[in-house]
């Protein structure tokens, strides 16, 4: 009888630290999601509100730059909006994981969607980065002029909006790894 009671005591001691680490991982996951939400939302808004009109014009051409003049930027705004919406929707699930650290199936579903969103975010950010680079430097071979020399504030906006997005990418990588660690430790 006494041996059985001692066994139960040792077993419960082994489980408690494991449960505590899982809870810490879940809390960190929630905080990272909040950071990513702020980053991607900021990027979407910063890119989506670009609108610069130069103070001169000729009779036929109008010197105006907006984000939807370039399809890559439209894709960037759409991708960041989708990812922000997904993060907002996944926050309740993250809270659920803090409360119930042992849930495995929901974590795996979250890993799947997090990976898909990581790919979408990276695609949007890199496509926009390629066009931003072209806007800054132009390309001699293809005879593409750099438009940044004329559209200063537009250029600054589009360059700055990339920062939040790339930060979101880093955070997403961490989130996926954390979810996998939490799944493997239960």
């Amino acid at each position, binding site marked *: 009888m006494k041996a059985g009671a001692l066994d139960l005591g040792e077993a419960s001691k082994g489980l408690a630290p494991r449960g505590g680490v899982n809870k810490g991982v879940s809390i960190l996951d929630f905080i990272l999601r909040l950071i990513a939400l702020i980053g991607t939302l900021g990027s979407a808004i910063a890119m989506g509100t670009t609108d610069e009109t130069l103070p001169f014009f000729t009779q036929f051409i109008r010197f105006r730059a907006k984000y939807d003049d370039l399809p890559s930027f439209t894709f960037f705004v759409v991708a960041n909006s989708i990812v922000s919406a997904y993060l907002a929707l996944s926050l309740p699930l993250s809270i659920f994981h803090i409360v119930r650290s042992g849930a495995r199936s929901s974590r795996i579903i979250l890993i799947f969607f997090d*990976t898909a969103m990581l790919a979408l975010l990276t695609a949007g950010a890199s496509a926009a980065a390629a066009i931003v680079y072209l806007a800054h430097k132009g390309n001699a071979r293809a005879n593409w002029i750099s438009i940044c020399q004329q559209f200063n504030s537009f250029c600054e906006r589009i360059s700055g909006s990339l920062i939040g997005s790339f930060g979101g990418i880093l955070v997403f990588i961490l989130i996926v790894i954390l979810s996998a660690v939490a799944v493997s430790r239960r």
Partner: protein
Amino acid sequence: MKSGDATTINIAETSGGSKGKAAAAPTIVATTKATKHAAAGWKRGIAIFDFILRLFAIAAALAATTTMGTTDQTLPFFTQFFQFQASYDDLPAFTFFVVANAIASGYLVLSLPFSIVSIVRPHAIGARLLLLVFDTVMVSLTTAGAAAAAAIVYLAHNGNASANWIAICQQFDDFCQRISGAVVASFIAAVIFMLLVVLSGLALRKH
């Protein structure tokens, strides 16, 4: 009492039902071992599928790298000062594309031994977790290269009226076909990487 890979539960024996309870303990040992064997077989299946997917991803990433890296088209006419030549290193986005896909191919080849380890030892967490971490980074890197090149390829096909950028595909046909094909192959590799991440996550579950 805990033995190697199966747990036994000590049931306190009373004088009355000792026979019934002694029979219960071996069945509990038997069921935990059976669950572990079933889990090992299922994890092994996932690991084999993971290995096959890696082989496909190597093919896709290598194809993307070589197709983009060997682009070199010279148009048959030239003026006194210009020679109309298009190569991948004329555009920094394409250079990044080649580098990113080369890194992805190299990583995939190096990860094959770890994949084999997780086939042979289905319950090894370390190898799978390592693969998952690097696969996640590779998803990001491959998608970044593919998307940046796709943005430039789109511009090459369609041009942009607002920025006064002309579509160069109308002149450089072969170059354009090559870069478009390379981008498609790279996106296939990115999708395979995503599948690998989800598979590793599935196989990491403890039973």
